[in-house]
């Protein structure tokens, strides 16, 4: 067990003289922030403005920490954020990196990410919401609480909706326990704007608004390459150009979800590849054949036949 009086001894010791200067470069090196930023650059394709914002935020926090060391500020800065952007633009992935970043800078103690949606916060009957929300908040203490599609919390059409209760508890904790947890709200840009407009308390408590742009066609192609790499697949040259056409077409069709659409398309291409191998293989199949996605695997997609009539592959 810990010696319960260890903290006393520290408190009674002579006050440590406050430094008069800090080495920001050394701080940057030692905190491991550079590593997180490099990882962000390496693993996430595109998202230039997002990376820029995160770099700026990291710099701000680093300077803030230095100021705190010199005794220039006392307060913890407000770190709650909102990530807005279309589906599949990497909001959750960036939130995960953000948690790591804040942990390395010492702004959260544990650095884990708890990802929730309305269902995890809002109860189904009177008196169910508060314990549910508190349970989630307790789990997220010391880390980052990521609320996906946060605008669902507020339902203006139903004045007796329990979402309001969850919002009130959230706001209270966001204000009073800024040292203990960081809240990131995520969702589509336009609906988040409406959400903030009807809940001014949230807007004023959120310091960083980061907007996630849609991916370019080339970026989606290189994301596809990375996804396949991870699963030890690769595209044939012809398949690559067909995939490019696919991306261009898919974008114009409904329910396009950026990287998520690409992942689903690749999953289906793998399915077709497996079927093709079964149908055509006569004898042993080579490693190369097993890991190559051919043009026909992608061209068979419904997207080329004029689009999705039913909701398929969001």
């Amino acid at each position, binding site marked *: 067990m810990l010696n319960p009086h260890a903290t006393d001894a520290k408190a009674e010791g002579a006050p440590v003289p406050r430094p008069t200067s800090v080495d920001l470069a050394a701080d940057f090196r030692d905190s491991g922030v550079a590593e997180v930023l490099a990882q962000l650059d390496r693993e996430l394709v595109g998202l230039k403005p997002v990376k820029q914002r995160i770099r700026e935020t990291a710099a701000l926090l680093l300077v803030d920490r230095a100021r705190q060391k010199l005794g220039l500020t006392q307060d913890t800065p407000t770190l709650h954020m909102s990530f807005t952007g279309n589906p599949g633009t990497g909001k959750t992935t960036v939130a995960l990196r953000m948690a790591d970043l804040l942990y390395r800078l010492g702004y959260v103690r544990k650095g884990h990410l708890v990802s929730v949606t309305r269902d995890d916060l809002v109860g189904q009957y009177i008196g169910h919401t508060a314990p549910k929300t508190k349970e989630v*908040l307790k*789990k997220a*203490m010391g880390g980052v609480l990521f609320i996906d599609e946060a605008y669902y919390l507020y339902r203006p059409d139903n004045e007796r909706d329990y979402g309001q209760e969850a919002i009130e508890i959230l706001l209270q904790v966001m204000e009073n326990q800024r040292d203990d947890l960081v809240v990131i709200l995520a969702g589509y840009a336009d609906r988040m704007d409406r959400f903030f407009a009807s809940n001014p308390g949230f807007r004023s408590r959120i310091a960083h608004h980061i907007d996630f742009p849609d991916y370019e066609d080339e970026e989606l192609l290189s994301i596809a390459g990375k996804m396949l790499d991870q699963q030890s697949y690769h595209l044939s040259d012809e398949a690559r150009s067909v995939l490019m056409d696919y991306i261009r077409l898919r974008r114009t069709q409904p329910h396009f979800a950026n990287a998520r659409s690409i992942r689903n398309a690749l999953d289906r291409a793998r399915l077709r590849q497996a079927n093709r191998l079964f149908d055509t293989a006569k004898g042993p199949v080579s490693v190369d054949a097993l890991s190559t996605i051919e043009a026909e695997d992608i061209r068979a997609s419904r997207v080329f036949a004029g689009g999705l009539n039913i909701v398929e592959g969001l």
Partner: protein
Amino acid sequence: MRITQGCFSFLPDLTDEQITAQIEYCLNNSWAIGVEYTDDPHPRNTYWTMWGNPMFDLRDAAGVMLEVRACRKAFPDHYIRINAFDSTRGFETVRMSFIVNRPKVEPTFAITRTEVRGRTVNITMTVVK
């Protein structure tokens, strides 16, 4: 009379920081934490009332402190203790337990001795408030 049950009970009362540090130690050992309260500190009263469910999936002591504060607010004049439960096979028991809140005036105990057959003495302890 000062009740001495669980860890640290012979020491001065722990401050909130010290309690946080102890909870942090429990969480690092992946023990589940429960908050319990009672107004009856009789040593035979092992079953205190649970304040909410035990917390199995917390990462940080701030979550427990939230409950401790809420419990203190609801029962400022009760005993409140924190139990840390170890689910490791072979232990499967409370590994650490300590009091985090006491009433301002603590009760004392009265002893009643009853002589029964063969000069045997039965001792009964009762809480006197």
